[in-house]
């Protein structure tokens, strides 16, 4: 699958995460799973990368000011003794970034022109991270989510209550809301979502589709 963002063809995104969301990513306190969607936005958005870098600077300032907590007497010697140890491999992560994520997606067709794929992340049990691809003309299910929802538009465009989100844009919903996003324009729309808690479809078609896709 081609990914226009990675090829650098996407225009500058116009919808971004809120400042407190960028800050929580920089702080490392973002709910796990949601950071996957945030990372996808950062891959597409130099402006937000720069803001995250500034909030990291804030982190540097805050640990400079923090009241230190003493380590044990032996800690320095123990650490010096370990300096030449071979390094443990870090947990596997984003070598291939978004491309890897897309190529590894196990797609489940839930309706004509619509597929969904769960993304494996160490997210909270009831949270969901998934890709959803919707063909032009197909509608997504009206649904309610119990908490926050992050969306990164990867391809095509999305119309959510009259606001158009294009490839590269980030949609941040903070709390419970029922909505019914639609594909905008003549191209299929591919999005990466993270939702706090499972989605609750509010119509019959949605209940069937969501059950098939297990999202």
């Amino acid at each position, binding site marked *: 699958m081609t990914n226009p963002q990675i090829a650098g063809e996407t225009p500058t995104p116009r919808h971004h995460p809120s400042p407190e969301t960028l800050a929580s990513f920089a702080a490392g306190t973002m709910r796990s799973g949601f950071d*996957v969607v945030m990372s996808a936005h950062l891959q597409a958005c*130099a402006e937000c990368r720069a803001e*995250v870098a*500034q909030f990291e600077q804030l982190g*540097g300032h805050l640990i400079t000011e923090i009241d230190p907590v003493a380590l044990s007497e032996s800690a320095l010697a123990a650490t010096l003794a370990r300096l030449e140890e071979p390094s443990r491999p870090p947990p596997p992560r984003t070598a291939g970034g978004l491309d890897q994520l897309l190529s590894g997606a196990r797609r489940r067709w839930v309706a004509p022109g619509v597929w969904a794929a769960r993304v*494996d992340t160490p997210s909270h049990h009831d949270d969901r991270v998934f890709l959803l691809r919707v063909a032009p003309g197909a509608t997504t299910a009206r649904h309610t989510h119990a908490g926050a929802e992050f969306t990164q538009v990867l391809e095509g465009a999305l119309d959510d209550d009259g606001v158009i989100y294009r490839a590269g844009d980030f949609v941040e919903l903070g709390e419970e809301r029922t909505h019914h996003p639609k594909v905008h324009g003549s191209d299929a729309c591919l999005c990466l979502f993270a939702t706090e808690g499972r989605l609750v479809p509010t119509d019959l078609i949605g209940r069937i589709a969501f059950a098939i896709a297990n999202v």
Partner: protein
Amino acid sequence: MSGDDAAGSAKRDPAELIRQVASGDRVAFAELFVLLAPRIKAYLVRLGSDPASAEDLAQDVMISVWRKAPQFDPSRASAMTWAFVIARNRRIDSLRREDSAVTYGHVPPDVEAETLLADDIVAGLQGDARMREAIDELPADQQEVIRRSFFEDEPHSAIAVALNLPLGTVKSRLRIAFTKLRSRMKDFQ
């Protein structure tokens, strides 16, 4: 080491120490350890780690500092920001080791930073001084929510409980505080 608050009296510039550590200087590493490790441990404890795990993880972070020292670039980030990012990433890694295997996750910013344009970055110490000024100008209650948002594990709900505020108030206060901080940082550029 004594474990006293020797960090406050460290004489040498941490960026200089990191440069020496990069060339394998263990004496400089010991000095850097005294400066950084108690702060990193404090950071991990604030984020909910028990003291024994925080102690172990702070040592792991210092080993990462030893290994990554050759990659430190003071024109990109100050020494303390660089150390913060390493500590933050090691903490995330350790939380995930306890969890399932990660196939895709947090983009480590020390890699991500490679794609930043030089103009995007408020470089090193100068940027830190601006950040300090920007945060000092904020009202005390906003400084407090900002500090807590970095040092609490479930920031929003923990702040709400600690400050006895409704969750919605915490969220709007955070938004106001970070928006102000952001616009002040932009003014400096």
